[in-house]
């Protein structure tokens, strides 16, 4: 029996897996775009990690949208609980975690023991999620790693008033047609997203001293800046932001 444990997070856009050792240290990670046959993909990713780390027989805990599809998972837990557990393991303190994933954004109030005190999620709509940026950024030909620079260099934000992803896309097209600068639109888009997130977190913001950011979108510096600007205080980016859920899963007692 190995003392290693495996957590896998089958998200709507990407699937993440980690192997932790007995002390909770990360031994290996994996990340792929989610495939339609989620169960097969999970099995393959786990097998590869096992081969790499020698984690034969390690318990596998599954979370995320596809959590029920993982063959041989010893436990299935929702991503809310796993994110709280994962961020607490990484940062060791209470706070408000904003997880911006592909299809949903969650606000999770984590208490001083790593448990969920309260949570909220966007419903039935991709506005305010990674998907929102994925749809719109190609229109601007703005590469992901240049976003922060563009955000900071924009003299002012061009207001994007639609929060609906589909409407915002057409709004951006008409802004471009009207000769607005790409940088300004990038800034406007991120400010609009930050606004959505703040509305989602609502009253939980008052109950927490620190806002933490995880999920794929946390790798986007422009989003970190926009959220910090909106909140009037810097936002903590959680280490390994995409893997927080998988880490929390691995830390769940099997």
């Amino acid at each position, binding site marked *: 029996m190995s003392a290693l444990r495996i957590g896998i997070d089958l998200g709507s856009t990407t699937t993440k897996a980690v192997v932790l050792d007995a002390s909770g240290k990360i031994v290996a990670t994996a990340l792929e775009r989610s495939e339609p046959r989620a169960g097969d993909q999970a099995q393959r990713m786990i097998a590869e990690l096992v081969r790499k780390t020698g984690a034969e027989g390690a318990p596998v805990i599954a979370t995320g949208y596809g959590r029920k599809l993982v063959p041989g998972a010893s436990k299935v837990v*929702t991503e*809310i*609980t796993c994110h709280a557990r994962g961020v607490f393991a990484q940062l060791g303190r209470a706070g408000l975690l904003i997880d911006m994933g592909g299809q949903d954004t969650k606000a999770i109030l984590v208490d001083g023991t790593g*448990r969920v005190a309260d*949570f909220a999620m966007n*419903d039935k709509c991709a506005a305010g999620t990674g998907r929102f940026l994925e749809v719109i950024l190609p229109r601007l030909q703005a590469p992901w790693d240049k976003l922060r620079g563009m955000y900071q260099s924009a003299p002012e934000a061009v207001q994007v008033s639609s929060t609906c992803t589909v409407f915002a896309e057409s709004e951006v097209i008409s802004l471009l047609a009207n000769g607005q600068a790409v940088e300004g639109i990038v800034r406007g888009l991120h400010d609009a997203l930050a606004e959505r997130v703040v509305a989602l977190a609502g009253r939980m913001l008052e109950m927490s001293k620190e806002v933490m950011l995880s999920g794929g979108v946390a790798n986007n510096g422009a989003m970190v800046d926009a959220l910090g600007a909106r909140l009037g205080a810097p936002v903590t980016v959680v280490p390994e932001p995409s893997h927080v859920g998988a880490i929390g899963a691995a830390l769940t007692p099997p």
Partner: protein
Amino acid sequence: MSLIRRLQYEAADRLAGPMLGRYGRLRALARRSRGKRRAGPPQLQSTRKLKELLTTHYLAGRYADGAVPVAWVTSGFPVEILRPFGFHVVYPENHAALCAVQRQGVQLAQVAEQWGVPRDTCAYARCDIGSTLAQMTPVGRIPRPDVLLACTNICQTVVYWYRTLASLLNVPLFVIDTPYQYGEPDAHAERFVARQIEEAIALCARISGVERDDGALGLVAREAKQASELWGECLAYAKRKPAPWSGFDQFIHIGPIVTLRGLPECTAYYRMLRDELSERARLGIAVVENEKHRLVWDNLPVWFELREMSQLLAREGFNIVVTTYTNGWAETAPMFDEHDPIGSAARVYSRVFINRGMGHRTALLRSLAKEWGCDGVLLHSNRSCKPYSVGQLDLASQLTRDGLRTLVLDGDHLDSRSYSKEQAEGRLSAFMESFA
């Protein structure tokens, strides 16, 4: 009114019930001999009687028009006043819920949408208008009304909904307006409501050709009071730990108190249910094995997901033991007074909780949680029912401050297109995990 029609109606009303009861018992026996058993505790015996009552009601309805006067009414209308005039009463809301349980609600709602009713309108209204337009119903046939009766104590939607029906069916509509009670009950407003009830009675007398009889009105008020009190007793059995029945059961067994209130069979039914629950409680039968956490439910149920949702919760030892919705029919009805049937009806129907301000709703949720020993509250944010869903975020904050765990769950009581099963189940699971 034709004699043959009347005979058909009476036959359906009096003979069909017992026959159905016997048929139901035979089917249950056959099922048992084939070895089919449901998971969980045995079904409440009363359920068979419930089916019999409601089936008889809908069956008689097929022959009602032409035999007796027919009224279509909203769930919050003082139906008691109709009883002495011999009306057959149709509840479009109850019918829509039935369509939802049978998963035919959306199909009917779409008929109304194509006709021009916007999707933002309550799905009960859409389903009912669709059913009227297409003449389609899972119960065979709904009798044509002689009059439409609406009361604004549940929402303003009913006014526009019933106006649409009135023009479609070309029948008169009478609306009782119950001013919203922001704070303490308002005596002036209640006098205003009483005057409208008087007018409604005069209208019913005219339509039915039967004279007003105050003694009979008093008797019906007494019957309604008794049935509502029995319903309250039934609900109170869920205060036992573990509870002998759940909020999901209550949603099913609420049928007669809504549709047959004021009739002796309704009272008899709840006496039977009360006795069965008392027996269950005595024997310590729990509806959820290993009941660990008890929840309050706010708003109408997600009719088409009742079973799935109850199983999801029960698997983790969670039980909904009380709901603001089912409690609604026990909350004010004990105020019925047989010596003042009209004045008391004005009070009963003006003070329904959905016609009252946030202060009352917060206090109500707090006291239900306390009395039924709950540690969490599920607030169903019902896309269809705006008046019931507005304010739930504030309610949730208040209750969280009291130390209760809360979840605002997006859904719809009828329209499955406005409900994301995957998301809802994920939220519910996360909510339950947070109790660990």
